[in-house]
Structure formats: C-alpha cells, structure tokens
C-alpha cells in the first residue's frame, strides 16, 4: 500500500510541470497571432485552410504564426471576449458580428482598424459603414453576408411558381407550397421562421428608400438614445404585411432547427444568411435549392438589403496583426472564402478576378447575395443596440405574440419600450 502511494506521489510530481503547460509552445522569433472565430461546420474548415495557407506562405516569410480557435457561435465569442478582457487570454483578433459592436465600441481593449493602419480602400462601402462609429472603423469586414430567401426550387418549378418579390407574394406562394394531412396537421410549411433583429434591419431599413430602427443612424453615431420605428410606422407596416403569411395557415413559427426543416424538405422556404449557402446546398435532400433577394415589405421598400455578417475586431496593435488582417481581406483570399462558404467578398477587386467571375458563372446562386448587396443603398446599416442578444429574443417573442392575436399598436409599443429601457440601462451604467 505504502509503495503504491509513494509511486503515485512520484507520478504526480512528475506531472506537475504539465500543470504549467499551455503557454509554453512559443518560439521567441515567431510572432504568434491568435484568432478566435465562429465559423461553423464546413465554413470552419475553409477558414482553417486559409489560415494554414497564410502560415505556409506569408507567415513563413515574415515569421508570423496564426492560431485559429473556434469558440462557438458569434455570441459565444463575444462572451469569451468580454470575460477575457483584461486578462492575458484576450486574443489578438476576434471574429464577431454587429451584436458585439456596442460592447466593443466602449471597450478599452479594442484597437481600431484606423489605429492599425490597415488599407481599406478596396473594401465595400456598405461593409465599412456597418462597422464605423464615432471612434472610426471598429472592425474589418471579413465575413460579410446578405439575408436571402431560400426556397425549394424543385417544388416551386413543379407548381409553376417563382420566388416572391414582396411579402404579400410570399403569402400567396406559401399558401400554394404548404401541405396539411387529413387531420389538419402541417406536414410541409410554406414558410418557416420568425424574423428578428437581423431580418428586421432589412425589412425596416429598406422602407421608403432608407429607414432606421434606432436614432443616430441605428446607433452608429455615438450610440442610440431611442427606437424610432414606432414614430416612423415602419415596424407596424412590416407586421401588418407579415401577418398575411401567418394567416395562410401554412406558416411554421419554429425558431430553431429551421435549416434542417428546410434541407429535409419539410419546409418550402425560409430566410437565412448567404453564409449558409454552401452548407444548405450540400445538405438539401432530393431537391434543388433556389435563392432570391429578400422579399420587399411593400412597393415603397426600395432600399434593398442590409449588409450583415461578421467582422474582425483587433485587440493587439502590432504589424503582425496588420499583416494578417490585410491577408484575410485580399482579393484572392476573399474569393476562396466566398467560394467555400457563400459569404460575399468584401474586397471590390475580387469581383474583377477571372477566377471569381468563372466561379460565379458555374455557380449562379452565389451571385444573388452580392448582386442584391451591390444594388442596395450603401447607407442602410445594421443595428447597434446594447444587450443585443436580449433584444434578439425579445423581437421573436414580440412578433409571435402579435401573430397570436396581440393588437398591432400594443405590439409596437411594447417592443419600443423594451429597446428604450435597454438603452437607458446601458447609458446609465456607462456615463
């Protein structure tokens, strides 16, 4: 017994050096750049391959080694970044989306793209404006996307239908493509999903040429002080149109697993980011996928689509970080990234490269998102609101309540007060 314990002790002592392990793999000559990202599934593989390519080429020449680490979804990355702020664990670069903007705008650890001196002359104008605050360019657009209307093309073709142009058209199409069994149970939804902040920034933003949900240009100019979709009537207009889809009876209000419902053929259409294009095409079972620009709320909603998706936030001010960022937005890398995922290239030069042109010719679906973005009003912009994830869920609840019978004006007022109180709490704490 005694011997075993002594052996165990020795074993343990020999393990102790391992305890301190973790940061030991550093080479003094090579600059390590850590990137936290949220690219999932096959997108993650594409991202890793871009990084590997960097490490083997530019990185090798300039003694830079990039480590890319998947940290979960975009909101998980934000959680991790907030928790790591002020510790040695904060990465050099983090891939996040608009929901992180308010926090990052206030963060003392963020290094703006302007401060790094990254050349952004070739970057899409709408992409830059979506991450610009009074402090300058907070983050470098990298994984830009547009909201798309995905539909079961095989089914639509067989019924002689085309992708809808307006929400009213959407309702008509849904009533034709939905299916119920003899008990009245929905076996195929004509449309699935409840819009939230992401979708609404387009549905509200495109109205009357251009509209905002919050004042100060959706919060980009010094932070929002209140919601303005009530006084402008834009949210109400959207809700009244959206109700038409619900009233067909072929609308499913599910909010999770919608991609799987669509790819398995149990829903005929849904709205999702263009970043899911590659994944959805690959996993659609037994039908051809079609995509179209987001339906307009009404004939006056001419603004187009808001650029969405993510950007790279930097936390270290050195030339290695700058080099890595410039690599990631270079025309060729953006082409590879777009081809592998469905994200829209942020570098305007990408659209002129022969290889990307050839790719779009082969895969016309990939051009729908960029076409709709390039033809949109570049001043339309995403929403910067504090407690973004709370608001995200609040919108879904709010819309669901409306569909289930809450009066439209009450619905709009409720949402307005939720957003205004979130803004007030945030401003009180960060005076």
């Amino acid at each position, binding site marked *: *017994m*005694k011997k075993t*314990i002594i052996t*165990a002790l020795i074993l*343990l002592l020999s*393990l102790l050096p*391992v*305890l*301190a*392990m*973790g*940061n030991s*793999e550093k080479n003094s000559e090579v600059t390590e750049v*850590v990137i*936290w990202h949220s690219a*999932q*599934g*096959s997108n*993650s593989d594409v991202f890793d391959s871009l990084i590997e390519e960097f490490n083997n080429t530019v990185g090798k020449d300039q003694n830079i080694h990039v*480590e890319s*680490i*998947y*940290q*979960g979804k975009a909101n998980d990355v934000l959680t*991790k970044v907030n*928790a*790591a702020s*002020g*510790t*040695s*664990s904060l*990465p050099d670069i983090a891939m996040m989306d608009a929901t992180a903007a308010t926090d990052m705008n206030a963060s003392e650890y963020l290094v703006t793209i302007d401060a790094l001196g990254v050349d952004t002359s070739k970057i899409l104008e709408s992409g830059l404006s979506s991450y610009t605050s009074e402090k300058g360019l907070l983050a470098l657009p990298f994984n830009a996307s547009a909201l798309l209307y995905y539909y079961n093309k095989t089914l639509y073709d067989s019924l002689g239908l085309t992708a809808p142009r307006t929400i009213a058209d959407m309702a008509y199409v849904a009533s034709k493509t939905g299916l119920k069994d003899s008990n009245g149970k929905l076996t195929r939804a004509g449309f699935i999903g409840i819009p939230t902040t992401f979708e609404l920034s387009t549905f509200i933003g495109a109205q009357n040429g251009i509209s905002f949900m919050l004042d100060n240009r959706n919060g980009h100019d010094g932070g929002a002080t209140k919601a303005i979709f009530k006084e402008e009537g834009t949210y109400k207009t959207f809700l009244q149109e959206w109700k038409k889809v619900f009233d067909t009876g072929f609308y499913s209000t599910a909010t999770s697993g919608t991609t*799987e419902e669509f*790819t*398995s053929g149990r829903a005929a259409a849904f709205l999702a980011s263009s970043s899911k294009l590659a*994944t959805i095409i*690959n*996993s659609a*079972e037994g039908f051809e996928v079609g995509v179209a620009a987001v339906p307009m709320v009404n004939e006056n909603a001419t603004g187009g689509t808001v650029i969405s998706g993510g950007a790279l936030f930097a936390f270290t001010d050195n030339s290695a970080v700058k080099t890595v960022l410039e690599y990631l937005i270079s025309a060729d890398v953006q082409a590879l990234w777009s081809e592998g995922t469905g994200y829209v290239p942020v570098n305007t030069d990408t659209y002129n490269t022969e290889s990307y042109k050839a790719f779009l010719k082969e895969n016309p679906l990939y051009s729908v998102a960029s076409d709709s973005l390039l033809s949109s009003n570049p001043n339309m912009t995403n929403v910067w609101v504090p407690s973004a994830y709370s608001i995200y869920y609040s919108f879904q609840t709010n819309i669901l309540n409306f569909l289930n019978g809450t009066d439209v004006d009450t619905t709009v007022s409720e949402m307005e007060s939720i957003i205004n109180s979130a803004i007030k709490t945030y401003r009180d704490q960060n005076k």
Partner: protein
Amino acid sequence: MKKVQRKPFDTFRFIMRKILLVLLAAIVLFPVFYMISSSLFSASDFNNLRLLPSHPVWENYTKALNQKYFIRYMFNSIGTSLITAFLRTAIVILAAFAFTHLRFRGKSIVFAALVLTLFIPQEAILYQNYRTVAGMGLLDTWAGIISTSLFSAAQMLLLMGSFKIQGKEIYDAARIDGASDPKYILSILIPLSGPAILTVGIQTLIVSFNSYLWPLLVTNKNSSRTIQIGMTMLGFSESGQLGPQMATLVIVTVPFLLFLALAKKKIETTLIRR
C-alpha cells in the same frame, strides 16, 4: 383458502409491475441507445429521422478520432481529472485526520468554517472565481481547471465518519511505537478506510471528468480544452455532420459505462454498509 383467492390479482399486479419496469428501463436507456445507433448514421439518416442506421457508417469513428484535437482534449480531461481526484482525496484525508485524531485550539471554528463551504454553491460565485483564477494567470492551464475543485466538505465529513470508527486506540498505540503521523496515515489509516477513500476518489474522478461549466470558462485554447468542452465545439453539428459528434460521445461515454458495470457491486456495498 385466502391465498388461492388472492392469486389472480397478484399475478395481474406482477405483470403490471414488470411492464412498468420494462417501459421505464426502455426510457432510461433510450438516449444511450440512440447515441450508439446514431453514431453510425449517415447525414441523411439524421434527416430521415431513423432509429437505426440504414447502413453503418464507420467513418464517423475515424472522423471523430482523427479530429485534430481529439487526443489533446482526452489527454487534458484524463490528466486534470486524475490529478483532481488524487489531490482532493489527499487534502480531504489530511483534513479529516486532523479533525478526528488531533486536538488543537480553534478546532470547532475551523471545522464550522470548512463545513460552511457546503452552503456555498460554486455556481453563484462563478464570476468571482473566474477573476481570481484569471488574476493568477491560470487561464488555459491545468492548474486553472483543477483549482476550484480541490476541496469538498461533504467528502471530508464522509471520511471523518469512517476515520472515527477506527478509534483513537490504534493511533495512540502507533504513536507509542514511534510511528510518525504521515507513517500512521499511509500505513494504517488509509488501508483501514479503503472503501470510503476509494468512493471519494472515484466520485471525484467522475465528477471532474464530466464537468462542463468551469472548464468552458477557463479554457480558450484548443490545446487546453477538455473533451466535455471539445465535444460541443467539434463544429460537426452545423453542417449536418452529427454522426462524428455522436461517435465522439460514444468514445467518451462507453468506457465509463463499462467501468460502472465493474464498480457497481463495490459502490453498492459501500453505500449499504455505510
């Protein structure tokens, strides 16, 4: 007479009980069954809501095992849980020994203060502990993962119960024979309380191998993550690649299921005798 009359009803009840038992067992077993079955699914098997694979896709296992960090995750999990189990058991033994064998000033106060930790759920002080560990520079290290789980008042009480049974006589006799405290603990106390100490060790091992929230918070790198975190972050799920994820679950869970089959009798006897 009476017995004969009651019999049909008894048989009915017996059958009902068995049906209920089979039903309940089936429910309890279902997730594990589904885990094993779906670890052999192709992507379309998931979409088609199958219960059994249309044809077994063994590549799911190769994919899981070849995942870049799988070995590293496992190494971190096994390493941290073994060290936690060893250190915590040692710390608890020493504390229980001091309280049962020694007399000293402030004993009741220290005892009460340690038992107080029973009243403090670590979930509620997660953030403060995170700041402490981050402040000590222990994020992304094994020490950081282990640090907060090195003491358990409940286990200390359990061992104190067992140590008390040994009685002070043996201790006094050993002292007179010239045995030092460490010698007494190692060669007399631990062997005599074997089952209780083993229970403490195994319990800690399982709990720390399976812990999720704390390792999630204190690890940010692939090289320092444990398998429980890695499992949810393999990124297979979003691209319809649930198969390799399920295969990972099987690889992680099945050894424990087998271990439990072997240890079941031991756990039972320890608990029943108490």
